[in-house]
């Protein structure tokens, strides 16, 4: 699948030519950009909003924003990084407006500990070691959004650390620390599950 190819940090932007054509009003280029990037936008929206319909609406909103802002896009960063940035901020804004959950950007391990506590004796599926992967994937959806977000950008969208710092506007150390905390939280989920 072409979308699973890790974006090359610092490399040339594979969409640069299409973007230039799209800026000149080339409808075919727009269509190709949508075709090649929609899964990132939809997946990111889904990981943050955790709802398919919301993720669809969000994807539409993101592309409308992108087309409106495209004439001002100078290519200082890669188009995909810029797109991820718009999609991330739109998703988080949507999440806030839905008031399903407040997103604390400050490091908040209390949130994480609270989450892990609440999992004990909860209604989660009985753990079977052979279902390791599915179990871990499910647990990601139970992590605070900021951890699910960095995991999504790193593992699913295969962005580099540098690109993630640009998308989130966070220092490299913070991004790495969040990724590590997310990994440890998932390891703790395994420990809890094995202890049951």
């Amino acid at each position, binding site marked *: 699948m072409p*979308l699973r190819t890790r974006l090359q940090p610092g490399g040339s932007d594979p969409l640069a030519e299409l973007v230039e054509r799209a800026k000149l009003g080339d*409808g075919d280029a*727009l*269509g190709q950009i*949508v*075709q090649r990037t*929609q*899964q*990132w936008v*939809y*997946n990111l929206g*889904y*990981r943050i909003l955790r709802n*398919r319909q919301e*993720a*669809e609406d969000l*994807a*539409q*909103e993101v*592309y*409308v*924003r992108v*087309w*409106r802002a495209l004439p001002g896009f100078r290519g200082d960063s890669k188009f995909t990084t810029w797109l991820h940035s718009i999609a991330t901020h739109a998703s988080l804004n949507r999440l806030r407006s839905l008031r399903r959950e407040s997103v604390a950007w400050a490091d908040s391990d209390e949130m994480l500990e609270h989450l892990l506590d609440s999992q004990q004796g909860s209604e989660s599926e009985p753990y079977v070691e052979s279902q*390791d*992967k599915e179990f*871990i*994937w499910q647990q*990601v959806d139970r992590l605070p959004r900021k951890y699910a977000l960095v*995991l999504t950008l790193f*593992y*699913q*969208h295969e962005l580099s650390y540098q690109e993630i710092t640009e998308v989130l506007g966070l220092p490299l150390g913070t991004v*790495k*620390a969040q*990724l*590590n*905390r997310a*990994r*440890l939280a*998932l*390891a*703790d989920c*395994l*420990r809890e599950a094995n202890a049951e």
Partner: protein
Amino acid sequence: MSDNHPRQVLAEYVASGEQDRVLGEHWQHVRDCPICQRDLQRLRRVEVALRQWPMVSVPAMLNERLLAAARLPRSLEENYPRWTIWLPAVTVVIAIALALLLAPASLHVALNAPPQAAEPSLSFFALDREAGLALWIGMCVALAGIGVTMGLADSRMPDREDLDVLRTRASRAVEHAWRVATHSR
């Protein structure tokens, strides 16, 4: 439990593909510590799972919907910027008109106050109540109009029915305010 065990380093170590240099000074502890070894095993399972974590599949109709969204900007160029220009302009004109219509005499008096007046004449407090009220109403109308316009312009969903309703209501509210202002004299 993490106080004595370098858990962050363990996570980094596994993610790095288990490069020993990542463990650094913790290498011996990790090798000998059963707790760290169990943590390592779990982190390896997490890493394997995350590296195979699939994205959610895109709904069948999403592509068409997004392409339709891609075609929107052209119609936006034609419809929306006009809104964003004329609505604030109209509200500012209404605001000025309200101020002038409701209190022309007071303004005139205030602007032409004799220079020997004890207080500087062109202050807000020098105007009488009617003029102050007029200015206040005018400012409110202008701010409300600009606010509504910015809200509409900022919206990225111009094909939504509720926005059309909002637009209609905004127009009616402006008309109503205009009628009230012109009949109140």
